[in-house]
């Protein structure tokens, strides 16, 4: 039913993303789908990597490790932004089309009052793409 999953992740918070990663692995097994891990990172040095190239290298390693762990096809893609916090939604939305992903699985937080001002990231991806979106709540 689904051929390609897009799983947005932040390498700085992999622990918090564990539920989404698990869902992605389980469903990929079910549908024999390829999982593409996508990260948005700044072009300035950050906690995970000091250059965008280093980030890409780490994400590739992460994707490969997930593939080995779950016995699946994996890919990775790093999106560079000069203002990741502001551009995240838009970049993820574009990435869905570019990758040809048909299912997006992403971790999100519980609904809260602040969402009016600072909406959760998944909502924009759901309203602006044709892909199915699976929001995993922690």
């Amino acid at each position, binding site marked *: 039913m689904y051929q390609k999953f897009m799983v947005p992740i932040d390498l700085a918070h992999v622990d918090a993303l564990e539920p989404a990663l698990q869902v992605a692995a389980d469903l990929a097994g079910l549908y024999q789908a390829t999982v593409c891990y996508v990260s948005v990172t700044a072009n300035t040095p950050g*906690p995970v990597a000091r*250059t965008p*190239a280093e980030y890409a290298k780490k994400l590739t390693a992460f994707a490969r490790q997930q593939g080995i762990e779950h016995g699946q096809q994996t890919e990775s893609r790093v999106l560079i932004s000069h203002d990741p916090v502001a551009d995240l939604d838009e970049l993820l939305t574009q990435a869905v089309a570019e990758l040809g992903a048909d299912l997006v699985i992403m971790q999100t937080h519980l609904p*809260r009052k602040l969402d009016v001002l600072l909406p959760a990231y998944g909502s924009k991806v759901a309203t602006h793409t044709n892909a199915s979106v699976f929001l995993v709540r922690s």
Partner: protein
Amino acid sequence: MASNSQHDESEQASAPGERLPPPEGEATLIDTDYVIGQDNLTASPLGINLDIHGKVFAVSAAITLFFLFVTLVFQAQVEPLFNATRDWLTGNLAWFFILAGNVFVLLCVGLIVSPLGKIRIGGSEADPDFSYTGWFAMLFAAGMGIGLMFYGVAEPMTHFETALAGPSLENGMRTDWSPLGGAPGDPQAAARLGMAATIFHWGLHPWAIYAVVALALALFSFNKGLPLTVRSIFYPVLGERVWGWPGHLIDMLAVFATLFGLATSLGLGASQASAGLAHLFGMPAGNVTMVLLIIGITLIATLSIMLGVDKGVKRLSEINMVLAALLMLFVIIVGPTLLILTGFFQNLWAYVAHVPALANPFFRDDANFSQGWTAFYWAWWISWSPFVGMFIARISRGRTVREFLVSVLLVPSLVSVLWMTAFGATAIDQFVSTGFDGVKTAALELKLFVMLGQLPLAELTSFIGIVLVVVFFITSSDSGSLVIDTITAGGKVDAPKPQRVFWALIEGAIAIALLLGGGLVALQAMTVSTGLPFTLVLLVGCFAIVKGLLSEPRG
């Protein structure tokens, strides 16, 4: 290294033998064990995510509150104290500021012509993040937009007047404010000297100050892999100690200067914009108007930073540049066109002819001018330099050092010359040719509008003038909030959004508190005083730039 257990089976291309993949193309990263954000506190009070450098954030916030409190409560006592500090600094250390300014210009010009100019920020293969228009609009809007609106007419006119009046002596000391020896009784020479002095204050020197900070930060962040905060400039001098208290202090000073520099400018700008509105539409120029202006500016700036650098700050800067260009073209076409166009080259020449004397740090007899104008300006530019420099650094990845310096130093300087010529020469011409002395007698903040009042469509152009003042403030305020947020987050540009909103709102709140409680001018004096420690930061920056560039691979 940041990682603990990364697999080294990457398919990602990286130079053989390199432990850490360099940025795009070749660059020499600094090897440090510091992990960006390692001293940060993360928490989610009330569902709002925070990611801040605990010490820098807490102490900066405490110092800010302390100064705000002291200024508001003990206004009568601190105002003379702050003013005296500023006057002592600009009076006794004028030579130091002027000398340092020359060092910055010479370094930048030297780098443009040297082979080091070929090195690219972000690695030899890095692509520029922004187009020339977007980049240029942002660096100009952040750098000095607002000042050009107010001093474009006022400063050439003031220097022209004092130069025309010539020196006056009292007990062997000069009491006049004319630049150099003035040009008593010679309107042509006085106009040339006035324009040269203005261009000196708005041309190469201020932009060299910004360029030094920006280049140092960009180099150490994009090529060396250190966090994007002011302390990184000190790595070649302090080594690993920059991650401790010496570094915290440098960052706190930067936050302090940026926050109060912006807040006082915001307050003063609001009073100027409301004076313009009163002049144009007869609106009451009271506290209510000013507070409403500050609230409006702050809200738009907040929206702008929520939208981010590309969709917010860049767009506003571009709108700004188009409006400013239209206003300048209007003045050139409707005003004395020929005089302005020939004046551009004459003024440029006058600048070249006068700059050695104007930039001379020692044995000046025009103390009022060199201390009250030049040294004050230098201290003021320098106190703004961490903010403007850091913002310019963030948007300049992918440019070569030469391209960067030409664009940050030469292009804005030429634009300033054209702007000052268009607005200043028109005002001087109104006085010299037609005897109109309205600009001469008008209050500082009204001179622009009085000058525009003599040209056709005055209502429209004055209104555009006010809009420009307001938008220039918004673009300074939003980029400033981003910078403070980055510094207080230990160099992370991707800290949660509520933090940047917090700083934008705080800035507006400080401006309102100072406006209502008084003390704007006093705190501005205090901010200018931070120019002294930052001059030292900049001199270290010069050393760091040279050292950093020399260690880069040259292709």
